[in-house]
């Protein structure tokens, strides 16, 4: 234990083997000539959920994919606990419209288990499905599930990776209130279990319910970063104030 | 589900592996390149089983026009060639592609035409008949495929001192296909056509066609058989090939040829001893 502490001090960051904190420095992202993100400096640390909030087109999803490592920044650097490359298998991602493998529900989870180097054990599959409320649906074709069920199956697949950080991109954007509640409950439970949640939403209410920390984006810039409580009661910037007040921020 | 799917794929694979079976089982065999007339008339279907019964040799016949049959042999893709175009056959042997030409049998050509006979050729000799078709400009179907029948047709036009194949009038239609196709075409167009009697008798789609000219000596059609020269193509199965040739010109083979009849008519007349 002594060794470990010494090492931690040496790199001035979190636990050895951890990817946290993730640090973005001067990150730009351009698609062709269009600037999507500009000059982002941000640190994501271990702890309760970080919510990327902002209107549509503000660059939330792009930022999430950059942090996940699905796309590379056009400028700037991203480090994971001081390293340039994240630890394989440490992160999982749930997409806004998750892809369903053309297989059964159980096979979808089994696939994620195998991809994470885990044994696709039947009991483990059942446990993961129960965790997202899909118990007993093992043999259903995944693509015949409802939108909410598909979203929860995607969550089960993500959890199969036993991630340190779980990224969620607008996980309830196209769901009805009941499905939204189901997904939010799972996310909250996962967050309490110690998994770092980083998610995007344009839904203020969802941000209030889940966020511990809010990162507010508009027009590709990071406008404000604050604890959720402070953000919602005393927004520091004009854009954030208008957004929280329910005005249209373009 | 995965199991079912793989089972389906496995079935296809099993089928594929069975494929090799017929290819391996046919060792004692020769390939004979021959003409459509001998095959389409059913002669081979009658005599080859007799030959196989005696020798155990499988004869695989590739039926083509005479020109193509000789070319197939020249490339070394056949062991024996059995065709009916004497001049071309002699050239084939002279150039060293074949060992020796043996006369086997003859059949005869007949001039076929519509029953209405627009050029009034019925009962004429073949040369006058061709002149009449030419003068009337009546449709005439030519094989145009360098087959033995085509060669015979060209020879007859030449003897009649006409050259429609050269001047290509609109009534002279070269189709570049086999005998059966030529008859089908002639039937459809109400045209005249030169055919070998064997194919004509066994042809099923006669409808408005009938024989208008026959029996003219110039219409006799000699068949010859040649072993492909093993010096040019060492893989030629010369023993089996020669056995086949020897059998064809033997009394037994000649008798088998004479025995073959369709609707009571003899199609081929063996003449290994007297033929040229």
């Amino acid at each position, binding site marked *: 234990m002594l060794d470990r502490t010494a090492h931690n001090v040496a790199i001035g960051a979190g636990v050895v083997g951890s990817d946290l904190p993730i640090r973005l420095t001067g990150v730009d992202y351009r698609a062709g000539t269009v600037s999507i993100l500009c000059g982002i400096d941000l640190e994501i640390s271990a702890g309760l959920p970080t919510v990327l909030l902002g209107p549509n087109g503000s660059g939330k999803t792009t930022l999430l994919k950059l942090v996940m490592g699905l796309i590379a920044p056009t400028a700037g650097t991203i480090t994971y606990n001081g390293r340039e490359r994240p630890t394989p298998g440490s992160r999982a991602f749930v997409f806004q419209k998750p892809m369903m493998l*053309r297989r059964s529900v159980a096979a979808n989870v089994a696939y994620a288990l195998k991809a994470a180097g885990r044994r696709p054990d039947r009991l483990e599959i059942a446990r993961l499905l129960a965790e997202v409320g899909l118990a007993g649906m093992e043999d259903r074709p995944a693509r015949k599930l409802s939108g909410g069920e598909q979203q929860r199956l995607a969550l089960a697949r993500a959890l199969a990776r036993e991630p340190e950080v779980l990224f969620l991109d607008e996980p309830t954007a196209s769901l009805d209130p009941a499905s939204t509640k189901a997904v939010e409950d799972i996310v909250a439970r996962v967050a309490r279990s110690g998994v770092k949640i980083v998610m995007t939403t344009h839904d203020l209410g969802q941000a209030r319910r889940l966020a511990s920390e809010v990162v507010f984006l508009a027009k590709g810039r990071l406008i404000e970063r604050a604890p959720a409580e402070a953000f919602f009661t005393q927004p520091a910037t004009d854009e954030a104030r208008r957004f929280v007040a329910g005005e249209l921020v373009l | 589900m995965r199991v079912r799917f793989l089972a*389906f794929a496995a079935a296809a694979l099993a089928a594929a592996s069975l*494929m090799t079976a017929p290819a391996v089982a046919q060792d004692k065999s020769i390939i004979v390149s021959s003409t459509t007339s001998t095959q389409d008339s059913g002669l081979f279907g009658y005599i080859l089983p007799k030959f196989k019964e005696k020798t155990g040799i499988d004869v695989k016949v*590739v039926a083509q026009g005479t020109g193509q049959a000789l070319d197939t042999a020249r490339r070394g893709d056949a062991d024996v060639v059995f065709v009916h175009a004497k001049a071309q056959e002699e050239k084939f042997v002279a150039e060293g592609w074949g060992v020796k030409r043996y006369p086997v049998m003859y059949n005869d050509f007949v001039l076929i035409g519509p029953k209405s006979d627009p050029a009034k050729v019925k009962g004429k000799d073949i040369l006058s008949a061709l002149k009449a078709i030419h003068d009337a400009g009546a449709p005439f179907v030519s094989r145009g495929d360098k087959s033995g029948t085509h060669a015979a047709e060209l020879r007859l036009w030449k003897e009649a001192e006409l050259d429609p194949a050269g001047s290509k009038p609109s009534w002279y239609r070269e189709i570049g296909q086999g005998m059966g196709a030529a008859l089908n075409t002639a039937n459809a167009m109400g045209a005249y056509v030169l055919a070998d009697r064997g194919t004509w008798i066994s042809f*099923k789609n006669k409808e408005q066609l009938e024989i208008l000219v026959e029996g003219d000596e110039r219409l006799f059609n000699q068949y010859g058989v040649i072993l492909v020269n093993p010096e040019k*193509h060492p893989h030629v199965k010369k023993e089996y090939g020669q056995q086949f040739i020897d059998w064809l010109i033997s009394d037994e083979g000649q008798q088998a040829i004479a025995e073959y009849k369709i609707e009571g008519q003899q199609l081929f007349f063996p003449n290994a001893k007297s033929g040229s």
Partner: protein
Amino acid sequence: MEASSALELILTGDATLFAIVRLSLLVTLSATFFAALIGLPLGAIVALTNFPGRHAVIVVLNGLMGLPPVVVGLLVFLLLSRSGPLGPLGLLFTPTAMVIAQTVLITPIIAALSRQVIEDLWTEYREELMAMEVGPLTRVKTLLWDARYSLVTILLAGFGRAAAEVGAVMIVGGNIENFTRVMTTTIALETSKGNLPLAIGLGMVLITLIIFVNALAWAVRRWSEAHAG
């Protein structure tokens, strides 16, 4: 022969007809099998990799879908003829030569169509598989497996094309009775003999067979889809 003769041959289980049908199926199924063995990975590689001239390869593959069977037959004939480069193998006028010709004929069809299907699926799966940190080989396996229904349909298209063609097998097989005679060459032969009713009857048998094979694949597909999505 009478109009009913083809039907009679079927009903009486005529041995010659059975042998011809069997050879047709064997040749075409084998060709489909080998074309799949070459065409599916080829389609996957072109779909998933980037290399100079990739667009040219796609255009050529798409164009080769329309290869005329006669031309394929002629090329394979020249290749396998005793006077050709592969002459010493002695394959001309054998069922093997027919399998080769049909394989050449339909490999581009299978490669071009599977390239399209796999590329479309890859567009859908790409980010998710990246997020799951799946390696290249597993990606290909995943895409091939998840595209299996579309790929089977593609194989059937290849099968249908090979089963229906006459030009290539006629040239390289030689239409030798009891050896390389298949349904299409029999139909061509019977037509040339003016035996139109029998030719049409055999044509019906051929069409029925192709429909039967397709129905079978359709049933498998429906069954699996209901169980796996």
